[in-house]
């Protein structure tokens, strides 16, 4: 038991997840590569006719997850369990119609897909994620819009929170003020967002923005990336093998 724990600690150290509060930006693998592998794994799982393939991927994912901190595991599994539960309820009529295997297959595929996405979300920051889209040659407009949306969500969220605090400090008297206050917050935030987007576009114009949105200092392909990239042929080989074995 003790030896097992020591072994797990060692693996955690090797995988670079020793810190309880590891930030998303510390990943050593290129975000574009992680995104590609995640996309491929989800696609192959969706295409797979053999449950063994899906089970193997889930097992590998759970093994990887087990090496993470309890906080990370909780954050990752929460949306997964909600999604699986929702899927289970939706697919429940399939059992009464004589297709219990469908319930299991679909639930497993949902579990696998959401698990991969949730891990990706918790280990790659949105900054790196949009960089990954750029590396994968997604349209500049899409990447730019995504970047700006994330930024505005943070700033406007902070702004509406301040108004909410101000309203709650002044909220005395009859209850209907509460609903009126909510409308006011939404309206003010909307107007503020319009003003901010105009100001941002002007600030960009002042810095010679001509529509091209490039990344600064792209990370180079390193040895850990090369090792991680081996997952691509491995996933494809496993998929082909399990489909032929049916």
């Amino acid at each position: 038991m003790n030896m097992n724990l020591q072994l797990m600690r060692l693996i955690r150290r090797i995988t670079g997840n020793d810190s309880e509060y590891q930030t998303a930006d510390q990943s050593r693998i290129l975000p574009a590569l992680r995104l590609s592998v995640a996309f491929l794994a989800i696609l192959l799982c969706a295409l797979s006719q053999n449950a063994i393939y899906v089970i193997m991927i889930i097992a590998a994912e759970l093994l990887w997850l087990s090496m993470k901190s309890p906080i990370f595991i909780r954050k990752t599994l929460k949306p997964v369990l909600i999604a699986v539960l929702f899927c289970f309820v939706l697919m429940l009529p399939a059992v009464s119609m004589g297709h219990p295997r469908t319930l299991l297959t679909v639930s497993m595929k949902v579990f696998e897909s959401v698990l991969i996405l949730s891990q990706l979300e918790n280990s790659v920051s949105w900054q790196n994620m949009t960089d990954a889209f750029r590396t994968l040659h997604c349209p500049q407009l899409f990447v730019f819009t995504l970047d700006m949306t994330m930024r505005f969500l943070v700033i406007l969220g902070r702004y509406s929170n301040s108004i909410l605090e101000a309203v709650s400090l002044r909220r005395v008297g009859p209850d209907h003020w509460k609903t009126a206050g909510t409308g006011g917050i939404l309206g003010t935030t909307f107007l503020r967002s319009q003003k901010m987007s105009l100001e941002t576009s002007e600030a960009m114009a002042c810095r010679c923005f001509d529509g091209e949105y490039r990344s600064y200092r792209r990370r180079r392909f390193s040895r850990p990336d090369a090792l991680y990239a081996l997952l691509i042929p491995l996933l494809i080989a496993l998929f082909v093998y399990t489909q032929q074995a049916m």
Partner: protein
Amino acid sequence: MIELQDVSYRYQSTPMQDTCALDHITCHLDMGRCYCLQGPNGCGKSTLFRILNGLSFPTSGHYIFNGMEITEKSMRNPDFSKNFHKQVGFVFQHSEIQLFCKTVEEEIAFGLQQLRLPDSEIEARVERYIQLLHLENIRQRAPFNLSGGEQKRCALAAVLAMDPKVLILDEPISGLDEEGQEWVTSFIRDLKSPDRMIIIATHQSSFAEKVADMHLQMTKEHRMTFSG
């Protein structure tokens, strides 16, 4: 370098009423000097800065920059507009709006990338301005999560990296603590050079006294007066 000839600016405040923001302003601003623009709230300082930055255009009169008239039509030409903005740097009053990149170093590199400078030059300039404005510890952080002082330094670095001939600063010390104000004051003093013009809007007379070579005073009637 900058010449305003009888510039007026009016806008429609209500469907039935025109409001005057600038009233027949004429002035000539030279390179190598630091101008401080002061005046009460609502006197037209921000409107004047918008005009100087090519974001708004006079309803009458002419704005001449380096011998070229800046009009809405000329600014619609991308090459002209790019060349103009390359020469005029603007630090907004609320830096949060001006900072839109994902990290501080990307923020500084943004304008340089738009100018199509070689990567080595971009990296060298980013490093130089990170050092100059003491941004080493926050270079990888998202600009909108920084404190007010850090945001101001980041915005300054992003604009200065483009090496503009004219630097326009809107309320550069507003919202900063005493230490931050002192730092900005000495930084602006160091920035003065014969081939750079600095125009600053401020409400703080003590700050204006410390940095200005010439004071421009806006009145409640939206007119401009000068003092040495």
